[in-house]
């Protein structure tokens, strides 16, 4: 049993601007914990989480793999999330490199085929497109959930970059909900990018049917 990261340093006021860990966070933690041995054996050197919010997930990953075993990078457009993630790293003794940025943009040039573990718990809630655009421009808490058409506005952009980022043995974990059309995502990633996927975990939480999808290269595509 790997302990859930200590978030006691984050207060109510922080969660006015930063997404507070909830069922979608915990299902990702559970998926990583189930894969703990596999992930350790891969000896990941570069881990990147897009949109870490509180920093809970990367702190957890760092606890699984070991603080000094990998480089832990995060990018979030929300400056409050960047501060929270940095603080959560310190609180849990995982050195997290918290950057303010959009998706993987600042790393695409240098991390080509170099990311060993890529994590994304995106804004997946279907909203109208204007609402999602506004939320991203505002870079505050609404940007953590407002997902535009089918809840895929941000996810679609990252999906186009995943193959380019993943190392030969890389793993990509994506949180999604049923309305995101899970099978469509899997088919597209296999057909367009040669990345196979499986449902690592799924569960119902209130009104949401949550999934964690796990992607990796097919044998012929390493």
């Amino acid at each position, binding site marked *: 049993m790997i302990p859930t990261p200590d978030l006691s340093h984050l207060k109510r006021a922080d969660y006015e601007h930063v997404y507070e860990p909830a069922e979608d966070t915990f299902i990702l933690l559970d998926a990583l914990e189930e894969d703990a041995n596999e992930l350790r054996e891969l000896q990941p*050197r570069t881990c990147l989480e897009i949109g870490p919010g509180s920093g809970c997930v990367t702190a957890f990953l760092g606890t699984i793999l070991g*603080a000094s075993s990998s480089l832990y990078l995060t990018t979030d457009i929300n400056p409050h999330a960047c501060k929270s993630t940095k603080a959560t790293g310190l609180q849990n003794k995982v050195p997290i*490199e*918290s950057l303010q940025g959009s998706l993987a*943009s600042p790393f695409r*040039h240098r991390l080509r085929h170099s990311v060993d573990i890529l994590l994304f718990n995106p804004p997946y809630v279907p909203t109208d497109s204007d609402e999602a655009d506004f939320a991203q421009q505002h870079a505050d808490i609404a940007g953590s959930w407002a997902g535009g058409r089918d809840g895929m506005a941000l996810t679609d952009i990252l999906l186009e970059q995943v193959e380019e980022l993943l190392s030969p043995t890389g793993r990509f974990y994506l949180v999604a909900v049923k309305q995101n059309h899970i099978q469509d995502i899997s088919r597209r990633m296999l057909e367009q990018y040669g990345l196979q996927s499986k449902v690592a975990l799924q569960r119902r939480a209130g009104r949401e049917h949550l999934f964690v999808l796990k992607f990796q290269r097919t044998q012929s595509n390493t």
Partner: protein
Amino acid sequence: MVRLITHNLLACHAKGCTSNNFPLQFQDAAIELRDAEFNADFLRGFLPRIEWTALVGAARQLGDTSLPAEQPEMLDDEFLQKLHHVLLEVHVEEGAMVCPNCKHVYPISNGIPNMLLAEHEIG
């Protein structure tokens, strides 16, 4: 945190800026040194992903001249200790990183770099 290991992975991504956009140059850097846990396996595993010349140049900009200009073939303990310090223990807390090509400025505040671009700068 902006440690040199991270700096070594960052390139300018402004619209149209695709060559000579790495490494970013430090400007008015305020640094802090903090101990980090030494892990030789990590250093050996990560070294192939490092652009050596960029790392040596960035370290020199910050006043650290401990690394040789050429990457040594023998990864002995003395070398790995120096590499560990330069990659993982030097934190740039304030200042900026500037693109050598388009001169875009990426500010660093409280150890967090702002790599966001304005809408018209996104490629």
